[in-house]
């Protein structure tokens, strides 16, 4: 007997599972049972599973019977004339939505040509095997598979318009492109997905050439003129927020300009750009570490000495400051209350990101690169017609990666720009290369997309002809201005006196274990010592007991708490080691430092 489960619950058994399943399917297709029902018969488990609950991902398929698809030309015509809609097709039993369980019982043909009497379903288009990001790539079948994968990954990182209501949102961090465009070479996905509302890049004129050495190893040469016209500009929004927190004992944070005398007061200048409520005015220019919201908080833990210090209130400055290394302009300010009734302030800071040297750009074919040189437009190469490329892409990026889709896109983009009509070229049913070449010739260009070009700096003709066309480029969310970091001297951590870690803390770059080994391997002991000197300290050590001595302030003399006025020797060691000695003492191990004689 076959068990039957409805939404995972056992409801009964049957001797004829196949019959039941078929019956449910027929009834669903004829509209007797709602079309949300899916049913699957698992022969190996001897189970029939009927599913009607929410949250299942289902995909549309054309129903096939005896090798003939139920969706006919007639249906398509009617759809075109707007006489019927999708739901009508569902009711007619021409298409259906199949979930992952029922998919196990299907035999799906990819194209109409493949159909045999055994097939149960037909895909709408072979390109549906690709996911959302991958279906944005034109000519993917001409690329090597991994490149399509990389390309799809980078589509996800591109800066565009992620949400049309971004002006009323307070995401922690978001990027919005200023002048986005629709690609000249598209796929079906661009019309199915609301790409008009969520575009992600710009069309650029791309020349496949080298430019001195400035575009080797995947770097990109970009036209300064194009940048001045707004190519790939974007805004970065970052939200800073604070709550007026309440503490035990009736104390609370105070939002406002801190008064002079408060612990940690940074001086009048640090607060002068704030309005009287302590919050930056909109359109205030803010620089790294500047106060955005002035705030003071009560001290949580009072030190023993603090109780006796007079003239200083027990509050501390805890203003919200711009992240270290960031810049921007206060854009929008929200003042509201939380559900607990405390005051909540959010400040959105905007920063304009014009592409610069170090920013990451990518086409849709997994061809990413870093801007390495911004060239004035007059120095860029130009064609006979005076076309100046926006981007110069190094030809060495092509042979090893074999992204032929990129080349076709460049030709396609050129054709689209000449004819004024976008090329729609979905995966597996592309606009033919022949057609593109013919259109180029009809418009007075060479069929291979190459053109005679001249050096902008010398005016001399290049000996070779250069492949030039138009491609869609994206700016990826890896901008140098968010990553650039350097330090010479700077903050140290309290515990170990070693430099801090991380860009936001103005930290140093770690010279790790393996780097240390390299210095040893080179025999550079003195260089190694210098590297690890960041926390060096001079520690006074008693020559008798080998423990740290102390400084008697009254006598201005160093004495050992155990051996009194014994001989005390200053030893240079790293502070972290002194800390380790202290920790050993705390675990009842006596680390006696045996000091040698001073020379």
């Amino acid at each position, binding site marked *: 007997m076959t068990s039957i489960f409805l939404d995972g619950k056992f409801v009964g058994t049957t001797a004829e599972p196949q019959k039941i399943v078929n019956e449910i399917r027929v009834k669903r297709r004829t509209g007797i049972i709602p079309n949300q029902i899916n049913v699957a018969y698992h022969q190996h488990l001897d189970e029939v599973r009927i599913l009607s609950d929410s949250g299942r991902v289902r995909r549309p398929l054309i129903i096939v019977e005896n090798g003939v698809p139920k969706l006919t030309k007639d249906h398509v015509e009617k759809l075109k004339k707007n006489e019927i809609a999708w739901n009508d097709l569902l009711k007619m039993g021409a298409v259906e939505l199949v979930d992952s369980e029922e998919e196990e019982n299907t035999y799906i043909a990819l194209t109409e040509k493949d159909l045999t009497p055994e097939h149960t379903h037909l895909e709408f288009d072979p390109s549906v095997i690709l996911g959302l990001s991958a279906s944005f790539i034109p000519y993917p079948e001409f690329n090597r598979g991994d490149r399509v994968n990389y390309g799809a990954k980078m589509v996800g990182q591109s800066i565009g318009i992620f949400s049309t209501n971004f002006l009323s949102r307070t995401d922690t961090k978001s990027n919005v492109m200023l002048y986005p465009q629709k690609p000249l070479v598209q796929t079906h996905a661009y019309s199915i997905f609301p790409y008009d509302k969520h575009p992600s890049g710009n069309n650029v004129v791309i020349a496949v050439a080298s430019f001195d050495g400035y575009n080797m190893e995947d770097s990109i040469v970009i036209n300064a003129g194009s940048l001045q016209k707004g190519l790939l500009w974007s805004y970065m929004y970052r939200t800073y927020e604070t709550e007026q927190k309440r503490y035990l004992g009736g104390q609370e944070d105070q939002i406002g300009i801190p008064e002079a005398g408060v612990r940690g007061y940074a001086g009048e200048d640090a607060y002068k750009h704030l309005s009287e409520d302590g919050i930056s005015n909109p359109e205030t220019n803010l620089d790294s570490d500047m106060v955005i919201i002035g705030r003071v908080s009560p001290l949580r833990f009072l030190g023993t000495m603090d109780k006796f210090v007079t003239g200083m209130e027990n509050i501390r400055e805890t203003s919200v400051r711009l992240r270290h290394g960031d810049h921007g302009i206060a854009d929008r300010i929200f003042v509201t209350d939380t559900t607990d009734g405390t005051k909540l302030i959010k400040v959105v800071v905007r920063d304009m990101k014009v592409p610069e040297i170090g920013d990451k750009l990518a086409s849709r074919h997994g061809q990413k690169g870093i801007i390495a040189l911004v060239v004035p437009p007059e120095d860029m190469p130009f064609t006979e017609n005076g076309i100046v490329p926006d981007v110069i892409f190094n030809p060495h990026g092509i042979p090893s990666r074999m992204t032929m889709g990129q080349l076709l896109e460049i030709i396609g983009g050129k054709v689209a720009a000449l004819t004024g009509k976008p090329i729609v070229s979905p995966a597996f049913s592309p606009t033919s290369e022949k057609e593109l070449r013919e259109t180029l010739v009809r418009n007075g260009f060479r069929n291979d997309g190459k053109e005679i070009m001249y050096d902008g700096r010398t005016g001399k003709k290049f000996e070779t002809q250069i492949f030039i066309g138009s491609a869609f480029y994206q700016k990826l969310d890896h901008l140098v201005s968010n990553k650039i970091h350097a330090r010479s001297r700077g903050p140290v951590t309290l515990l170990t006196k070693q430099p801090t870690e991380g860009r936001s803390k103005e930290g140093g770059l770690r010279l790790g274990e393996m780097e*240390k*080994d*390299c210095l*040893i*391997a*080179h*025999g*550079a*002991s*003195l*260089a*190694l*010592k210098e590297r*690890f*000197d960041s*926390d*060096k300290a001079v520690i006074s050590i008693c020559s008798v007991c080998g423990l740290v001595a102390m400084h008697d302030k009254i006598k201005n003399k160093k004495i050992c708490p155990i051996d009194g006025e014994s001989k005390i020797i200053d030893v*240079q*060691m*790293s502070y*972290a*080691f002194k800390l380790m000695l202290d920790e*050993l003492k705390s*675990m*009842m*191990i*006596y680390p006696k430092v*045996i000091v040698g004689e001073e020379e």
Partner: protein
Amino acid sequence: MSEQSQTNSESGLPSRLVEEIEQVSREKKLSKEKKEKLIEEVKKVYQQSIFEPGEGIGIIAAQSISEPSTQMTMRTYHFAGTAGIKVTYGLPRLIEIFDAKKEPETPMMTIYLKKEFNNATEAAKLAEDVVEKKILNVTKRISLNLNENSIEFEVIDKRRIEAVSKAVREFLKNVNVKTKDDKVIVIPKIENVKELQTVKEKILDIHVGGIKDVKNAIVRKDGEDWIINTIGTNLKDVFIIKEVDEKRTYTNDIHETYTILGIEAARSVIIKEALKTMQEQALDIDTRYVILVSDMMTLSGEVNSIGRYGVAGAKTSILARAAFEETIKHLVRASIRNEVDNLQGIFENVMIGQVAPSGTGMFDLIVKADEEKE
């Protein structure tokens, strides 16, 4: 190594290099001046390739082995469905060698034959003899007789029935063993069926012939030599066989080599196996680095692993050991035993922020400036 490093006192070159120069100059009929020039050139290259005092050879060796090893990816782990003999190689084998595992995952022997037996028939015969036979391999059928509480089994080769019954008698004490036609009947004086079953399993596992632990043997011809490759090793028993050339016969089991042939042989096996493993993966590293590692492993007279129980655990410095692994163990032990760290190693000095005694930090100026004036 010791032979190689013997230097010719006259030229300061290793004697092997001097011999080679002699040979070349003889072959090419070099004049005296030309020969001297050649010696000069060789000297220059030789001296350039010698380590300088204070150079961190240990770290250089470690880096030279480990950098290529990182390129041996984990892919060597999985060979699902591959037919033939399974052999550990690649990274797992390298780890096995340097960790000085007691038993290799795939122990193997390469048996060479003495000159007079070096032919196909002898090799084939020996290969068959060498493989271990257990009762399991020589019996047709085994059954429990519950009426008489006995175990009966039929032997395939009737001629060996006496040997088999003798083996059972020797292996199991307090047992009555009888033979009847081609049947061996064992009466173990046990009435419990469960125990009878365990005795049956034991009987099947009794060794009756061949060499213990050798599971399989394949004959191969390598140049002039007929070689028997086996799975499973047992050098001790193989050496007794008169056809075997014990001078060349080899096992990949480091510990077995050590117990039977001694520490020098074990050192050679480590070098040979490590180099072989690297070369199988098309990684070219200098022999000297492997020699240094295996010297460290065998320095104490027995085989030590690289790691916390071996070479790294034998460091003199408490701080260096504590910083490596098992921090608390080393610190507590040091404090109980009142140990002293003389801070003479590199690691300890890096830790406390002083100049490490290697390379440029190795040397001090001992001539005083005012003495020089005189």
